[in-house]
């Protein structure tokens, strides 16, 4: 099997993730879509690692995972805080700064 198929899959998943960020309103779902994008790039990294025959790509995606975990933890805490005061997890409602 052609290894680049993984890359195509990665691109597809990345695009879907980006699209999800753009068209979903629930902040948590948007977060998931960001995770999807990160995962897709991880897949690309792992595949690159295999193509180049060294493990740096895997280490990079390992770091991506850690950073993604950090991001989720803080992001979800923010969502909870916002939800506590506004009773809504929709990103469109959090637009006080406009105008």
């Amino acid at each position, binding site marked *: 099997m052609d290894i680049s198929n993984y890359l195509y899959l990665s691109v597809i998943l990345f695009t879907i993730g980006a699209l999800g*960020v753009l*068209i979903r309103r629930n902040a948590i779902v948007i977060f998931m879509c960001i995770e999807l994008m990160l995962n897709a790039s991880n897949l690309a990294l792992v595949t690159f690692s295999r193509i180049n025959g060294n493990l740096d790509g895997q280490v990079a995606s390992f770091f991506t995972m850690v950073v993604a975990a950090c991001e989720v933890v803080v992001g979800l805490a923010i969502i909870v805080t916002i939800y506590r005061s506004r009773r809504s997890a929709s990103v*469109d409602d*959090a*637009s006080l700064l*406009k*105008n």
Partner: protein
Amino acid sequence: MVYLIALPLLSSAILLLLGRIADKWGHLLATLVSASAFGFGVQQFLQMHKQPGSNRAVTQKLFDWISVGTFKVDASLLLDQLSICFVLLITGVGTLIHIYSIAYMSHDKDRRRFFAFLNLFIAAMLLLVLGDSYLNLYVGWEGVGLASYLLIGFWNQNPVYAVAAKKAFVANRVGDLGLSLAIMISFAQFGTASFSGVAAGAPHASSAALTAIGAMLLLAAAGKSAQFPLQSWLGDAMAGPTPVSALIHAATMVTAGVYLITRSNFIFDASSTARMMVIAVGVITLLFGAIVGTAKDDIKKALAASTMSQIGYMILATGLGPVGYAFAILHLLTHGFFKAGMFLGAGSVMHGMDDEVNMRKYGGLAKVMPVTAITFGLGYLAILGVPPFAGFYSKDKIIETAFNSGGSKAIVIGGAALLGAGITAFYMTRVVVLTFAGARRWKSEAHPHESSFLMWAPMVVLAIGSVASGFLLSMGSALVNWLQPVVNASHVASGKELMKPMTVSVLALGVVVLGAGYAIIKYRAVAAEAPEKVSIFTRAARMDLGQDIVNDKVFVKPGFALTAGLVAVDYKVIDGAVRLVGWLINEISDVLRKIQNGYVRSYALMMLIGVFICVLILWMVTA
């Protein structure tokens, strides 16, 4: 050498920054500093005196001031034969006036501030005369301008005084513009602003540039020394306390113009046009000041007009070429003594007369203020040029030099100088007669009395100076020889003499006797009020020959019109453009604001579009 400047500056800073804490001892500190500066100056002078003529100039570099690429200006000081004269005059007279002021200002609650300003002035003036380049001089130049402004407006609670201070400041600015232009031209022309650099370059420079620099320097000198056409501020500057008038507006600061021209002798030596302008300014001012002086009833203003006139003599002398410089400086020094002495005397009179300045309200004060009368009288004799008093040696030399300057113009200049001497005799006699002689015209509630020791002691010292300085300085051409290396007066005796010194002295004395005699006759008995019905000449003189009116018509009104025009242009064209830009941005923003809708997802879409564009470019590039 740097301590000369640093000490007064430091003392001034201490007095200003410590505030009320220094109220008790501030004046003493200031006086002490001034006196020590004088002592230091004397020591320097003695040291210099020991050296042979060519080694006397000392330069001291302080620090690199400006260093941009190849363009370098050092902050450095130059103490030479010319500077030391000024240093001694400034610190000596300055110390005397400090002492005088202790008593004179003792009732003023702001005495500490006054002394702080005085010290600031001393520091700035010393910097002016010690700077070794035009740029350093400029710093001192501005410093004395500031000090003068602060001191004229010392009693700024009086709006008239504040306006007078502002007027002096503005008039000085015009002159300063000339100085800065001169510096710029010399930078452009010679690549340096140091005296030695410019002196070295001057012989090779084009006459147009030299004339331009000379004209600009003359403008600067006119501003600072109250010469025509920037003379109008000096009379109003009398608003300041009398010691200020004595120190700044008689003895030192106003002579800065003379110093500047003397210092720039290499410029004026090289440009006869510039020299001619100097002569013209000097002649006009000496007559102008003298005429104005005849009509003033305010004793200080009369003395101010006299100062203007005497400085006119000095400027005239500097315009007369190498030989004139020394006489200008000689007259400057003697004038410093007798004019300062007379101002202090006037202050003493005012002090005794409850700050009354109108001479018509004086009369017969010689009896109650003998010391003041005697010292003032000695100064009077000095300014008149009666032998053997100081003025005789200095003023007569100038008149003589004017007559001997060669050509047909010499007769005009000399005649004018002689006429000036006559008028001087007239108005000075008027002052003396009105103040000290005749019947008493003061009101009964005034109790004129002799001033305290602290006040009359300086007056006595200055009176001695006005008696002896002329003789001492010109004995064996002492000053001329002393200054010879600086002003380069090697060809003193060149050109044929039109008149012998003796002839000039006799002529001058005759003119003086005429003027004085007329004044005695005319003012032996006067009314306490100035007569209203007077000749048109008197009226013109009273109005300062319309100097303010001319200023107003020629400069101020067109200036206002120009400014108004510029404001209109600024508002319509420049602001209009700015407003147009603002309006455009506003309109564009209104459109763009719709993009900024507050929705995170829209922003994310923008980001993605950006990414898309980047990838698109990448795609096209790699195609």
